C-alpha cells in the first residue's frame, strides 16, 4: 500500500515537473534573452502548459505512409518508459524510495543506454534523410558520452561502497561531505555527459533545429511528438535529480524543510543550469563534439577513476 502510494506520487510529481518545465524553460530562456516569455495565458503565463498540452492532444497524429509503421509508433514510447523507470530508484527522503535496489546506479545506466534506441529507431522509421542523419549522429554521440558517464560514476561508487542511490546519500551524510568536493572532475564529466545524454544544447546535434529541419523528430506530430518532447524534459529532470543525489547530497539539508523539498530545490537548480546552457552556448560542430568526448573527457574520467581508486586503496 505504501509502495503503491509512492509510485502514484512519483508518477504525478515527475509528470507535473516535466509539464511545468515547458513553462519554466520558456520563461527562463526569455529572461536570459532580454525578453518576456509567455505571460498572457493564465497567471504569469503558467496556463501555457495547459494550452500546450491541449494542442498536443488535439493535433493530427499523422503516420507517414512511407514510414515503417510499428517502429514509428513505438519509438517515442521507449524514451518515456526508460526515463520513468529510472525515477523509481531515486530516494526522495530517508526510506522514501519506490524500489530500493542494491544496483540502482547500474539500472540507471542501463536504462539510459536503452533510451538511445528511441532516437535511433525514430530517425530510422521516419524514412527521411534528415531524420536519418540526426539519428546516426545521435547514436554515435550518445554512445560515446555514455562510456564516460559510467566511468565517472565509478568514483562515487567507490567512495560510497555501493551501487544503491540511498546508500550513496547515506554515505554522504556519514562522511560529512557531499561528493562533489572529492569527486569534482567526476561531477564535471558526469554533468557534461548528462547534457549529451538528453541531447540538449550545446549537444543537441540530433535535434539541431535550424540545421536538420528537426532531426529525428521531423515526421512526428501530435501525441507522439508530445511524448518525445515531455520525454526530453523528463530526461533533464532525471539527470538533474541524479546529479543532486550522487554529488550534492540528495535529500540532505538543514531540517527546516522536509527532505523532498531539498531534493526538489537542488534538482531545480540544475535544471536552471541546463536552461542557462541552452541560452548561452553555441552548438559545436559534430566532429568537435566527438573529439571533445574522446580526447578530453575520456582521459579525465579514467584519471579520476585511477586516482580515486589509488587514494582509497592507500587509505585502507
Amino acid at each position: 500500500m505504501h509502495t503503491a502510494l509512492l509510485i502514484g506520487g512519483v508518477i504525478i510529481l515527475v509528470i507535473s515537473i516535466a509539464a511545468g518545465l515547458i513553462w519554466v524553460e520558456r520563461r527562463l530562456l526569455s529572461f536570459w534573452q532580454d525578453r518576456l516569455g509567455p505571460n498572457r495565458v493564465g497567471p504569469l503565463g503558467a496556463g501555457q502548459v495547459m494550452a500546450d498540452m491541449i494542442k498536443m492532444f488535439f493535433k493530427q497524429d499523422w503516420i507517414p505512409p512511407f514510414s515503417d509503421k510499428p517502429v514509428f509508433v513505438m519509438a517515442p514510447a521507449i524514451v518515456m518508459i526508460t526515463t520513468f523507470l529510472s525515477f523509481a530508484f531515486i530516494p526522495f527522503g530517508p526510506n522514501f524510495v519506490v524500489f530500493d535496489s542494491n544496483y540502482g546506479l547500474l539500472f540507471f545506466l542501463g536504462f539510459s543506454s536503452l533510451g538511445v534506441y528511441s532516437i535511433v529507431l525514430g530517425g530510422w522509421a521516419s524514412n527521411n534523410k534528415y531524420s536519418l542523419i540526426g539519428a546516426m549522429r545521435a547514436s554515435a554521440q550518445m554512445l560515446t558520452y555514455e562510456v564516460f558517464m559510467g566511468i565517472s560514476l565509478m568514483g562515487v561508487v567507490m567512495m560510497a561502497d555501493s551501487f544503491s542511490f540511498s546508500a550513496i546519500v547515506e554515505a554522504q551524510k556519514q562522511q560529512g561531505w557531499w561528493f562533489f568536493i572529492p569527486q569534482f572532475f567526476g561531477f564535471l564529466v558526469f554533468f557534461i555527459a548528462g547534457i549529451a545524454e538528453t541531447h540538449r544544447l550545446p549537444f543537441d546535434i540530433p535535434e539541431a533545429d535550424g540545421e536538420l529541419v528537426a532531426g529525428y523528430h521531423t515526421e512526428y506530430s501530435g501525441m507522439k511528438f508530445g511524448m518525445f518532447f515531455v520525454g526530453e524534459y523528463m530526461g533533464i529532470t532525471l539527470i538533474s535529480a541524479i546529479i543532486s543525489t550522487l554529488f550534492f547530497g540528495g535529500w540532505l539539508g538543514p531540517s527546516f524543510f522536509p527532505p523532498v523539498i531539498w531534493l526538489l530545490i537542488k534538482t531545480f537548480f540544475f535544471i536552471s543550469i541546463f536552461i542557462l546552457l541552452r541560452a548561452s552556448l553555441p552548438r559545436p560542430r559534430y566532429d568537435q563534439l566527438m573529439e571533445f568526448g574522446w580526447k578530453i573527457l575520456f582521459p579525465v574520467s579514467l584519471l579520476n577513476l585511477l586516482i580515486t581508486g589509488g587514494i582509497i586503496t592507500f587509505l585502507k
Partner: protein
Amino acid sequence: MFSILRSMWLTFLHIFHKTETIEYPEEKPYLAPRYRGRIVLTRDPDMNERCVACNLCAVVCPTDCISLQATEDKNGRRHPEFFRINFSRCIFCGFCEEACPTTAIQLIPDFEMGEYDRQNLVYEKENLLINGQGKYPGYNFYKHAGVDMGVKKKGEGENEEKPVDTKSLMP
C-alpha cells in the same frame, strides 16, 4: 573552458536587464509621424474637401485598390461622388500620398484596422473623410493653382504671376 563559464555568467546577468518586449495592447509602440498607416481624406482650412477627383492616386496605386468617380457640385467645384479604398489590397506604400496634388489623401500612423469580415475592409468615403487637415495644415490648393472657385481670381494665387497681356505693346 573558462570562456564557456564566462559566457554562461554573462548570459546569467541578463536576467537583471530590462526586457525589450513592448506589451501590446497595454503599451503601444512609438510610431513616427511619417509612418505609413491608415489612409484618410482631409479637408482644407475652410472645411471643404481637398480631393478634386483627379484620379492620380488611383492611377499610381500598384494594387489598384482605389476607385472613385468625379462629379461637380452646384458651384462647379469638382469632388468625388464615391471614393472607395479596398484595404485588403492596399499595401500602404504611400504612392497615392506622393501623387496627390492637393494633399487630400494622406497616410497616418494608425495600424489598428483588424476585421473579422473581409467586406468590412472596403472603406467608403464616409469612412475615410476626416474633419481635419492631416499632416499639411494651412494648405488650400485653390489658393495656389486651379480655376477660380471663389478663392482666387486668375493670376492672383500665391507664387503666381499675373497673366501676360499678349496684345499690348508694352514689355
